[in-house]
């Protein structure tokens, strides 16, 4: 095969604080994001509360995923054997370029000029659409939100509800322009009808579909996709050829394990008890469904995550996005600030790892470590713990460079660490601080401006000046003498 030009989507152009600053100024987006996440979060809390065994389900899901990851080679090989036995084809892609080449090769063999797609984050991750377009093949997203994003030439900002940053009027404008429907109304049924009419023709005409996958079932060699609109069911059953691209971490041991995830995933993702469409299929069957079925198993940076004991749990993720909906940082910025296919808390740990920390180094810091993400995660990924682990990596890498070693952050943190090793030094620093702060304290007793890297604080906040007497000074003066006279002996 001749060399295929592979296009990469542009992410990580800006660090999180800079990208966030831009988005914070977009009040419409912030309003849309806050409204949408509040609605989903409310529904999620209600349906989770209905299950008396929710904590057990979380634990069970976490165990199944952790177990599979520990024996990933075994379960993937088993999946491959069973998938091939059922008439499927399995391809292994070590990175984005290889995955793109495999898919493009299959499409060329079938002389496809267009493909229908059911939402797949992995195709987003490898920049598949850009690659296809550059090679003269038109990808058509069939998930309503993805369609809105595609027609609006936008980027997804959430991986369950990719267009949640758009409101109904904005969607209507996109449809009017791109579907040539100047008279289109803005009622939900108007918009749904327009999308349905637009897509129905594509389902019936286009012969190749590309999908993602929620689960790979090792014991049957089958796959499972859950969705809400039925567009997935159309893509999975109507075309002659189905190509599914799936991250290697999506395998689970058996069909029976779906029992857990078909309860936890929809509740966490959309606040539904069950998804309206739950499709599982195995291989090919004469006269029923696609005649040809391919699975591309994508590594693309997942193996190194697997090898990192502290961060391995990242791969337990089932992409429910509950952590996005509950995250106070995500609430303020939406997904675009993460400059990544994967937004929110899970994106903050997944992106830097998939990109070997070269990109997205600011993402592990895009969290106040409030812990809300861990609390809702249906597979118990301790995201704050992984964030801290990744921050540790960023710091270690920084300290290995001269610029990093002499950065204000490093110098400041080293100095603080030096003080905290000894109370005498700390006490002396406190006294020096009292002298040092004099230049900054306003007449009202507050610090309203600070220099350098501390200036971020005083943009919107005042800081109470240090009081003249610290606790330890007060104790030494007021309590310690009495304690001694009482022959207490406790004060050292």
């Amino acid at each position, binding site marked *: 095969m001749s060399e295929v030009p592979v296009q990469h989507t542009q992410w990580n152009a800006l660090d999180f*604080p800079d990208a*966030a*600053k831009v988005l*914070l100024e977009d009040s419409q987006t912030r309003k849309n994001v806050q409204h949408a996440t509040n609605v989903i979060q409310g529904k999620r809390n209600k349906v989770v509360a209905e299950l008396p065994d929710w904590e057990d389900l979380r634990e069970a899901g976490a165990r199944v995923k952790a177990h599979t990851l520990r024996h990933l080679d075994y379960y993937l090989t088993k999946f491959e054997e069973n998938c091939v036995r059922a008439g499927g084809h399995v391809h292994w892609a070590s990175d984005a370029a290889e995955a793109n080449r495999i898919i493009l090769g299959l499409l060329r063999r079938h002389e496809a000029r267009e493909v229908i797609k059911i939402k797949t984050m992995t195709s987003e991750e490898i920049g598949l659409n850009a690659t296809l377009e550059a090679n003269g093949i038109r990808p058509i997203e069939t998930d309503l939100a993805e369609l809105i994003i595609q027609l609006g030439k936008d980027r997804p900002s959430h991986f369950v509800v990719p267009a949640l940053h758009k409101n109904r009027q904005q969607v209507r404008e996109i449809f009017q322009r791109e579907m040539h429907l100047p008279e289109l109304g803005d009622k939900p049924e108007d918009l749904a009808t327009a999308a349905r009419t637009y897509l129905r023709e594509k389902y019936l005409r286009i012969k190749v579909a590309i999908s993602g996958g929620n689960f790979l079932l090792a014991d049957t060699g089958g796959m499972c996709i859950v969705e809400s609109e039925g567009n997935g069911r159309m893509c999975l059953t109507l075309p002659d050829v189905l190509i599914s691209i799936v991250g290697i971490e999506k395998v689970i041991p058996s069909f029976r394990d779906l029992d857990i995830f078909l309860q936890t995933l929809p509740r966490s993702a959309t606040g539904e008890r069950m998804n309206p469409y739950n499709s599982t299929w195995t291989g090919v069957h004469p006269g029923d469904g696609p005649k040809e079925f391919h699975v591309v198993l994508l590594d693309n940076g997942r193996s190194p995550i697997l090898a990192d004991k502290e961060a391995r749990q990242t791969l337990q993720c089932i992409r429910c996005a509950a952590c996005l909906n509950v995250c*106070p*940082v995500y*609430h*303020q910025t939406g997904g675009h*600030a993460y400059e990544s296919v994967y937004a929110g808390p899970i994106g903050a740990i997944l992106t830097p790892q998939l990109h070997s920390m070269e990109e997205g180094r600011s993402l*592990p*810091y*895009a*969290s*106040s*470590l*409030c*812990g*809300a993400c861990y*609390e809702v995660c249906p597979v118990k990924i301790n995201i704050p*713990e992984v964030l*801290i682990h*990744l*921050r*540790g990596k*960023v*710091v270690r890498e920084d300290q290995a460079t001269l610029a990093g070693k002499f950065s204000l952050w490093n110098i400041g*943190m080293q100095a*603080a*660490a030096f*003080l*905290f*090793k*000894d109370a005498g030094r*700390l006490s002396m620093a*406190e006294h020096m*601080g009292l002298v040092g702060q004099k230049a900054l304290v306003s007449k009202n007793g507050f610090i309203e401006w600070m220099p350098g890297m*501390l200036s*971020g*604080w005083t*943009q*919107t*906040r*005042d*800081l*109470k000046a240090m009081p003249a*007497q*610290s*606790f*330890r000074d*007060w104790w*030494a003066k*007021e*309590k*310690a003498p*009495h*304690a001694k006279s009482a022959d*207490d002996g*406790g*004060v*050292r």
Partner: protein
Amino acid sequence: MRISLFITCYNDALFPETGKAVVRVLEKLGHSIEFRTEQTCCGQMHWNTGYLREAVPIIRHFVKVYQDAEMVVVPSSSCVAMMRDHYVKAAEMDGDAKLVADIEALLPRVYEFSEFLVRKLGVEDVGAAYPHKVTYHASCHSMRSLHLGDIPIRLLKNVRGLDLQPIQNMQECCGFGGTFSIKNADVSSAMLSDKVRNVLNTGAEICTAVDNSCLMHLYGSLHRQRTFVKTVHLAEILASGYAEAQG
């Protein structure tokens, strides 16, 4: 009971009144209090910012100072959360099995202040009086790491004259997050302004919490906006209303 205080670094330097209040409440309940002047910091700032190696000697210092304490009380849920969630991991990372064992032996004796009152001493009414309209900010670590639940609320409900006002979105972070408030100052400020709006909507004169770190953040904005709402640590409210000179 003989209680050792861990006043934490920022309480020591910035909020000494909180430490004094802890002393008053515990002494009033009849306990003998000691302050080990060698104490410094729990290591949270370094650990959470990714300076993991630098945090280990600070952790080791804490363990050394309090190893033989009968009981350690800390007026900060986030520092206790640091100890419970990360100390063992830090010691393991350092490959120090002795430190791991020492931490595991010490931690069951370390309590956050309100947790100590209710869970250890079984005291929900300390006899305080505080005739003010108050709202309670549940800090993230108090909720999600220490699982304090309604412990601080129960203590506040037993304070004479205190009018407790519920706050909307209690479970959402105020946006402090230590160095997060500096590294991501804009997002942190946006989170803060949501939280401050909720505080102001309660109509309370005072916002309280079990963490001065969150309160410092909230007050930073309340003061900048020239509101009249003040922030006061829970210990200071519980130490109010019994007017005797305690040093």
